[in-house]
């Protein structure tokens, strides 16, 4: 059995810390950029033009209907092969690219359903007062939709914290990658348990935060 869990944690804590930082950083970037892209996709999806809306729904369905790991492989190996120009770019960006795109599809659905959940009477009232489409969206619909959207975005971030574990497969320094590093020192089961523990603590803390946010949003009507 060799060393115990706490012994390993005590000896190699900077490695785990660095991994955790990577995990939080990658998921934050993925969800943030994914949110911006997702908002655009959501707006396109909500378009009255059926063809335009259809394109957005294809985008969402393809990205949600295929595994993230597959998307990462395609991005990591296929993109540089298809477009040799891209070979100059650091490989890490191809993994991030897949993460961002994947997140954008989920966020697009979060935003779309958040907007749809706002009663259409609100839009009618605003438009009947002579407010423009843009003003109605910005001043009336979005402030109400945000209440549904923010907690769901928090949950997307939690999901992404776990999803980024796949990035370790491509040598990105995040939590799962510490397993690879320590395996070289003949440590296998201890790092795995530690990693599982860290993931659990992080997601529990984040879930608690999301719950608090939900409560607060429901009060400030």
């Amino acid at each position, binding site marked *: 059995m060799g060393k115990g869990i706490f012994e390993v944690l005590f000896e190699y804590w900077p490695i785990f810390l660095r991994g955790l930082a990577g995990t939080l950083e990658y998921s934050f970037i993925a969800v943030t950029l994914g949110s911006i892209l997702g908002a655009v996709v959501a707006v396109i999806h909500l378009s009255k033009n059926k063809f335009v809306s259809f394109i957005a729904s294809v985008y969402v369905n393809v990205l949600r209907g295929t595994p993230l790991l597959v998307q990462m492989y395609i991005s990591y190996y296929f993109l540089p092969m298809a477009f040799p120009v891209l070979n100059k770019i650091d490989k890490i960006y191809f993994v991030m690219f897949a993460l961002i795109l994947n997140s954008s599809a989920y966020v697009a659905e979060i935003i779309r359903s958040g907007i749809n959940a706002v009663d259409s009477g*609100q839009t*009618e009232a*605003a*438009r009947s*007062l*002579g*407010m423009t489409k843009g*003003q109605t969206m910005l*001043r009336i619909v979005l402030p109400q939709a945000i209440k549904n959207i923010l907690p769901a975005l928090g949950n997307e971030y939690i999901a992404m914290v776990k999803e980024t574990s796949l990035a370790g497969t491509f040598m990105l320094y995040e939590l799962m990658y510490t397993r690879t590093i320590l395996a070289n020192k003949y440590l296998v089961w201890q790092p795995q348990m530690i990693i599982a523990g860290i993931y659990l603590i992080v997601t529990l803390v984040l879930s608690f935060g999301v719950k608090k946010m939900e409560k607060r949003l429901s009060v400030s009507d």
Partner: protein
Amino acid sequence: MIDNRIPLIETVDLKKNFGKLEVLKGISEKIYKGEVVCIIGPSGGGKSTFLRCLNLLEVPTSGKVIFEGDELDEKKTDLNLHRQKIGMVFQQFNVFPHLKVIDNITIAPVKTKKYTKEQAEAKAKELLAQVGLSDKEQEYPRKLSGGQKQRLAIVRALAMEPDVMLFDEPTSALDPEMVKGVLEVIQKLAESGMTCVIVTHEMGFCRKVADRVLFIDDGVVAESGTPDELFDHPKNPRTQEFLSQVL
């Protein structure tokens, strides 16, 4: 006073289909400045759809809606500008839950640049006083009763100083004890000379305030006339049947 030289709103052979369902089958009507028109009729007959066509919340399948001389469904018409002149009150109030009472009223005048924030607030306070909601100014709508919400919705529309007010069953979603207060506000408004088009099931109220009553059934204006003509001497058998059920 009713000024019946040129109509404020005119519809010409207005038709509206929802899919295969023909809801409006050609309505041509003229509503004049200062006139109070009540629309009655059975549910599903097209009353609300007709009203919602007047500010193009429903886009007519064919026909014209002419407001103050401009055809609303034309590309060159600035619909938003015209809607500022057409106030609307909904059955479900549709007050903005995320805004305080005062902001519910000022948001449209300020955002459409009709007034500065100071002007809009002064106007809002004046209107709130008129409907007895002065003490609710800084509250959120969830603290209001249904009747108060509807009075707020009326004031919100009035803040844009419209030339006409459309009411879509304004008391149908209210508890019975709230109805009177809201109807009083509408009646005061009608008596002040505001042009009003009111879809309603309140026959007593209709009789009291209306200059003219339209009976809309099965997508057409089956009968129209003064309240006395329509309620006391209905000519159309469909009107007679409807009135016998509701009166």
